[in-house]
């Protein structure tokens, strides 16, 4: 009886892994087939005349080393400054973030600094963004993280998508600024290539759930207000908002050529902290949105399937670990006929959850399309980030369950530390 249960569990897990693998294969094929590039470029060019007033929110908590960089980027934006409002939300910083931002705001009247005191600030990104939203006057609300550096014409590229009334939000591409720094930043860069160049592009092309990544994106102000802004009880406020936008009947568009450069985490400790927060937040979203996605009349079947796969993505490393744990005793107890074949699935499913949950072929094709010749060599090394993610996601799930059982607040926002080392990669 126990063996039969183990067999059934193993088969279900293998089926799930295969489903993700097929999904990523389809994504990779879709991007390779993406032939409407020229047509899309023409639409974007035409829509450049659409220039509504925009508000750009920059939440910042102890970001003195990087806040100057993004504000410098803001001053270089080609979008008309009289239609632009930049709001820096100094979220109760204990360093010189506020003063640095104020120094930039002084000569530029479109830059404002909102200060939250230390009692109300420092509790995460969502409260800071909601505070900024109250002061925003724009028709479109953008948000950028403080460690980012935007392309000069990024707002024009992103705003162009809002000419379609079905579009509620837009997402640009995230590229790693400090990639050459060390092995961790190089691996994060590879994850980003898989996640944005292939995953996001494919979801957009196939009409699936394009994800708002929490930064380098914008929303219609009316939609954002009708959704009551960012949910402060969820650690992955971006994924949460993504699903609320789709359930409300709107779409999110991804613009691959609207690039913004981020300062990636530089060591394994910070990598753990960041991914742990993402994993936990994503799992919270799974419990909050799964049923809503299934029941939603605004979503097509393929969007529902993709939505559920997207919501469950951080559970998969845990399930891979689980499949190993039950697979070994199952093999030792009674190797059935189908078992040999199932084992062969594992090397591919193993890599299908590498890093940013993209398999090796997806990352490879993404890097190739980006012309990142030297990046290929590190693809085999992504196995380490995958193994690391197994630990991170397992801990996140265990902590989430523990906090539910013990009724503890599990929403501690572990802030990613930015060193400002990315500044040296910007040429003025």
């Amino acid at each position, binding site marked *: 009886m126990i063996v039969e249960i183990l067999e059934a569990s193993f088969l279900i897990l293998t089926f799930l892994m295969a489903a993700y693998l097929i999904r990523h294969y389809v994504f990779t094929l879709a991007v390779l087939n993406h032939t409407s590039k020229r047509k899309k470029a023409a639409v974007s060019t035409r829509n450049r005349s659409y220039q509504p007033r925009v508000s750009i929110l920059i939440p910042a908590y102890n970001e003195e080393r990087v806040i100057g960089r993004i504000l410098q980027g803001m001053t270089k934006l080609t979008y008309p400054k009289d239609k632009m409002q930049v709001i820096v939300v100094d979220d109760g910083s204990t360093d010189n973030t506020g003063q640095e931002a104020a120094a930039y705001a002084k000569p530029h009247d479109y830059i404002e600094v909102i200060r939250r005191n230390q009692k109300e600030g420092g509790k995460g990104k969502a409260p800071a963004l909601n505070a900024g939203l109250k002061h925003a006057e724009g028709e479109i609300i953008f948000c950028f993280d403080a460690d980012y550096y935007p392309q000069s014409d990024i707002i024009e590229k992103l705003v162009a998508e809002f000419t379609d009334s079905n579009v509620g939000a837009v997402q640009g591409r995230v590229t790693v600024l400090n990639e050459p720094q060390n092995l961790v930043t190089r691996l994060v860069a590879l994850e980003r290539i898989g996640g944005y160049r292939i995953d996001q592009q494919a979801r957009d092309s196939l009409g699936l759930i394009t994800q708002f990544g929490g930064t380098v994106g914008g929303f219609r102000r009316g939609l954002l207000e009708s959704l009551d802004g960012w949910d402060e009880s969820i650690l992955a406020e971006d994924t949460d908002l993504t699903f609320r936008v789709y359930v409300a009947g709107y779409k999110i568009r991804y613009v691959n050529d609207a690039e913004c450069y981020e300062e990636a985490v530089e060591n394994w400790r910070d990598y753990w902290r960041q991914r742990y927060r993402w994993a936990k937040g994503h799992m919270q979203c799974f419990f909050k949105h799964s049923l809503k996605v299934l029941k939603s009349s605004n979503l097509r079947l393929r969007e529902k399937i993709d939505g559920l796969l997207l919501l469950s993505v951080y559970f998969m490393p845990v399930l891979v670990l689980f499949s190993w744990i039950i697979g*070994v005793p199952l093999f030792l107890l009674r190797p059935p006929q189908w078992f040999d074949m199932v084992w062969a699935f594992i*090397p591919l499913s193993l890599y299908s959850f590498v890093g940013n949950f993209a398999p090796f072929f997806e990352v490879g094709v993404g890097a190739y399309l980006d012309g990142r010749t030297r990046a290929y060599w590190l693809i085999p090394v992504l196995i380490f980030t995958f193994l690391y993610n197994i630990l991170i996601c397992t801990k996140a799930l265990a902590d989430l369950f523990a906090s539910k059982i013990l009724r503890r607040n599990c929403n501690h926002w572990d802030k990613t530390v930015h060193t400002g080392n990315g500044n040296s990669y910007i040429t003025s």
Partner: protein
Amino acid sequence: MLKEKIVRIRHSILGFFTGVIITYIIIWSFYLVNNEAALTLIIFDFLFVSLVFRLNGSFMKKIGLLLIGNVIGLLWNSVFHSFSYVATWYFGESLNVLYVILNPLLNSIWVVSFWSISLSVLASSRTVEVG
């Protein structure tokens, strides 16, 4: 642009038939390699033909890489299979279990590494073509 697209489609079709032939050979040579190795090779061929053959680069180079990949895969699995056979002979059946468990991980090492190398070769050919 159109010419490039036609070339890619032609490469994909020719690659598909090459993949079918290789798969057919692998299936008929099941007695040479174990089931796991054969299935890994078939999956490798499928991914390689359907994805890498759509990228830029000469057809002969892609076919060459595909064949080299299969030879490496076969050698890789033969070496490990022989090793496990000898080890089992001397140390008992428990080592064979270890081999079966580690087999997927061992196979993934050559698949992913060869994938990276193939892309590098094709990218270098693209640089030459453009430059």
